[in-house]
């Protein structure tokens, strides 16, 4: 399995000269399975650049964690949507209120958008994620509701003996200190248990979190405790706050590595999500380049 980050920013795109290294595009991760098939995790603005290079791919699966704008905004600018030969399946959380298509169409419709979903030249289908594991492109996918604001999923993707968890918007410590809590009471625990790579929300530094309790995102220490409790082999800190400059994130990363070592883990197991960062994921994970 290979993973490439196309957008690691949370909440809203944050372009600018002080954001160039970690990038300003919002959540989008490309997962290339062992047999070459591609899964796309979220459709934040990062998916636009991903789509530019995705020439020749006909079947495309996009797994949406939820429908906050920073996870769907790029859909309308995803080049394969405008290719007749594309067959795109969009998976996302079910709702008793309206279908996935209708909820996404609130964004891809007038007056917010110049095109309507029905006008897209590609063939696109919208699927609620099943309540049990299912197969997409040969990988086993599991989606579970996790603590955030509004119905939100985390994903676990298993391909052969490699497992990845993607939980970009998550506040598992809300009202529940994680250190002593039994695993069965920790949101997202089973999704992330023992994965080779955990991509997890780390929107806030610890001193910022008290001002944002209940906003649906994690502070650094909670992210590290969660990753440590689930025994993830490797951790990618994700969903950076739009106010966090490259310099700030460098500092946050250094703090994170020290704290991770404090949890008796190796500092090389942890990284900050960086646009363009690419990993081979498996029992022995190596960063290819960032």
């Amino acid at each position, binding site marked *: 399995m290979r993973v490439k980050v196309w957008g690691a920013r949370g909440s809203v795109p944050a372009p600018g000269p002080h954001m160039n290294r970690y990038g300003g595009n919002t959540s989008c991760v490309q997962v290339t399975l062992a047999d070459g098939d591609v899964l796309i995790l979220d459709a934040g603005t990062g998916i636009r650049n991903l789509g530019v290079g995705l020439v020749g791919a006909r079947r495309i699966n996009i797994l949406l964690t939820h429908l906050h704008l920073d996870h769907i905004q790029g859909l309308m600018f995803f080049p394969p949507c405008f290719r007749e030969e594309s067959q795109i399946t969009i998976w996302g959380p079910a709702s008793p209120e309206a279908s996935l298509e209708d909820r996404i169409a609130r964004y891809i419709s007038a007056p917010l958008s110049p095109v309507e979903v029905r006008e897209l030249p590609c063939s696109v289908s919208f699927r609620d994620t099943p*309540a049990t594991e299912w197969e997409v492109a040969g990988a086993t996918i599991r989606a579970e509701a996790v603590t955030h604001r509004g119905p939100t999923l985390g994903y676990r993707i298993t391909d052969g003996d490699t497992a990845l968890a993607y939980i970009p918007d998550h506040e598992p410590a809300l009202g529940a200190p994680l250190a002593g809590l039994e695993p069965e009471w920790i949101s997202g625990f089973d999704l992330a248990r023992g994965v080779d790579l955990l991509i997890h929300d780390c929107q806030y530094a610890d001193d910022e979190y008290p001002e944002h309790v209940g906003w649906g995102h994690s502070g650094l220490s909670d992210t590290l405790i969660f990753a440590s409790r689930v025994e993830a082999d490797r951790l990618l800190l994700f969903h950076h706050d739009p106010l966090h400059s490259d310099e700030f994130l460098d500092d946050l990363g250094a703090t994170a590595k020290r704290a991770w070592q404090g949890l008796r883990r190796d500092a090389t197991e942890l990284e900050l999500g960086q646009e363009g960062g690419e990993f081979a994921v498996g029992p022995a994970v190596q960063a290819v380049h960032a």
Partner: protein
Amino acid sequence: MGSPRSQKPLELILARNLLTSISTPGFLLDSDAAVVFYNEAAAALLGRSFEDAGRMSAEQWTAAFGPFDRQGAPVEVDGLATTEAIRAGRPAHGSFTIRAADGARVAIEASAFPIVASEHGSSGAMVLFWPLSENGDSSPGGGR
């Protein structure tokens, strides 16, 4: 194809988080009507912490704490408001007496409502206890 669920569904996790944050004695029941959590206010009322008690089946719960009707006779599990909330998927309210760990009898009113998520169906119920004072008034948010 689903793997066995050891993790509680999110709606129960969130319900527990809420109970942890309030001072009204509150209990969380799973879909088998077993008590899977109660908060510190409930622990104060019962005289026993949840950490000590652990998960209790409906039968274990009734053996330990009652409840009893106004005449002091044990109330069957089937007759409890909480059982009704889970089985019928409806809110329920009742009044009875429980026996705390120190043997003291406490008159309470209990409100139970089912927790239902479309994904899992019924996940259980939340039950709030309103201890009654000597003159029969319920005291919101209070232990003994």
